[in-house]
């Protein structure tokens, strides 16, 4: 059985700086989304306890070919990539179509895993969209995942409760970061990653056309203005006095 893990290349958010309220992406390295790595770890854990082949799937610009090595080092057996510069910053609907078309080209897919949200946009739509496009059942927000024959037992963690659901494979599951701790690959694994098989397709080959008009338009994307006093106080006594003057303690 193949387990497909959909992974997104994102800028390393820890290194994005804000200048004049605008995010600056110059020289920011590209990495795989953090929660995507938990999805990969969940797949690798299933592989290690049974029999499965883990395929890291990604759609994006040419840089993905390099970024995906991180996944191959962390346990993916092969990579399936749809690369086109037109996919740079592509919106959720388009990415979902590309991923769904790519999954159709892979045989014997039992499970398609996603992080619950991407590292940069975190809108959490793509997993659900792909499931619908492929006509597959889904369970999102998984905090535990276990295979049982042709079914998966998934714990879905909601705000006020958790549900244990049984879903018939093939299925789409999106995972929470709490599901596991993603491994950090060793140097040997990183060196071997470059030799693992990679299938690279172009956008035309999966038959997806990027629509001329965007369905979501961004008017602005700015850091919120923070006007804070930033008063350095020397002691707890001084702090308490200030907070009393503010009227926020001793009410």
């Amino acid at each position, binding site marked *: 059985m193949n387990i497909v893990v959909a992974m997104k290349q994102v800028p390393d958010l820890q290194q994005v700086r804000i200048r004049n309220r605008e995010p600056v992406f110059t020289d920011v390295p590209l990495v795989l989304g953090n929660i995507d790595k938990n999805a990969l770890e969940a797949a690798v854990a299933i592989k290690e306890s049974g029999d499965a082949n883990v395929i890291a799937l990604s759609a994006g610009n040419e840089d993905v070919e390099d970024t995906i090595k991180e996944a191959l080092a962390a346990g993916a057996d092969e990579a399936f990539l749809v690369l086109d510069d037109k996919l740079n910053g592509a919106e959720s*609907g388009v990415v979902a179509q590309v991923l769904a078309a790519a999954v159709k080209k892979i045989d014997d897919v039992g499970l398609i895993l996603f992080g619950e949200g991407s590292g940069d946009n*975190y809108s959490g739509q793509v997993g659900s969209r792909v499931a619908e496009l492929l006509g597959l059942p889904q*369970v999102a927000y998984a905090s535990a995942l276990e295979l049982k024959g042709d079914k998966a037992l998934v714990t879905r963690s909601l705000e006020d409760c958790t549900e244990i659901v049984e879903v018939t494979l093939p299925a789409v599951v999106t995972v929470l970061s709490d599901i596991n701790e993603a491994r950090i690959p060793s140097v040997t694994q990183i060196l071997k990653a470059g030799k693992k098989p990679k299938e690279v397709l172009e956008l035309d080959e999966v038959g997806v056309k990027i629509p001329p008009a965007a369905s979501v338009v961004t*008017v602005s994307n700015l850091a919120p203005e923070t006007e804070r006093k930033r008063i350095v106080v020397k002691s707890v006594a001084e702090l308490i006095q200030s907070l009393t003057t503010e009227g926020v303690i001793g009410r």
Partner: protein
Amino acid sequence: MATFMIYSSKEKQALELITAAKSVGAAAVKAVCINDEAQANALAAAGAEVLLINNDAISLADVAAVASALGQVAAQLGADTILLSSDRRGKEAAGRLAAILDAGCLTDISAIKANGDKIECQRNALGGATVATQYIASDKKIIAIRPKTFDAPGAGSGSVNAMTVDVKASAVKLIETKTRGGDSVDIEAAEALVVVGQGLNSKDDLPAVEALAKKLGGEVACSKPVATDKKWLSEERIVGLSGKKCKPELAIILGISGQVQFTVGIRDAKVIVAVNSDENATINGMADYILTADMHDVIKEMNSSL
């Protein structure tokens, strides 16, 4: 004029969506309820035209069925603007419904505003470092709005009508539901928050933190690792991108460096105090009062002074 349809599995959030729709000019609000007559009546009493689906084949655990039902109702109503709650169930359904309707979709929306015929939406982007203002340009629009963004509407006179939909046999079976036990704290409602992070030495220091929160008339909250890695506090108390977004009058932030994934959850507080042993901690940049000291000493001294 847009035709609005709303849906949430939760009554409180569905009520908020009625207010949301009206805030951007909806003359009439159509609301879908699935296997929940009580919610249907509550929404009708708030002025919504409710379409109630009673169908045992639809389980909320099977989002494919829920999205399919919503898609069928939207088609019958000619609804083009669909508001969902951006809780986990709502977000899971949003993407699926967007694929069914070929709709543009925005989730985690914290504010909406009509601008001409556009609905401008605000959401956190880049892990909370920025706030994006976006609108959906496609004919069909799905907007998932964060809970508590809007108040419940006043009374109105709506209606409840039955609606039938066809759903496929489910491939998702609910085995068990476990209610989150124990902690029912609502840190979003607290006037004051004492927020602890990884600077906290041990679980044994928590009673002193709780005592301080009590003296301030507030609650204890924490950064994500304190709850998910150390498990010293419940997940209900997490502040940040993957937790709660709080707007207390006073936030005392103790031993937290101030990564944006955390600060996004507290930056709307009226007064922010940062206590950190590192005078260059990022958190100091967003604080009104900065005290460079060991958080444990500060807790002890505040407890004896207040």
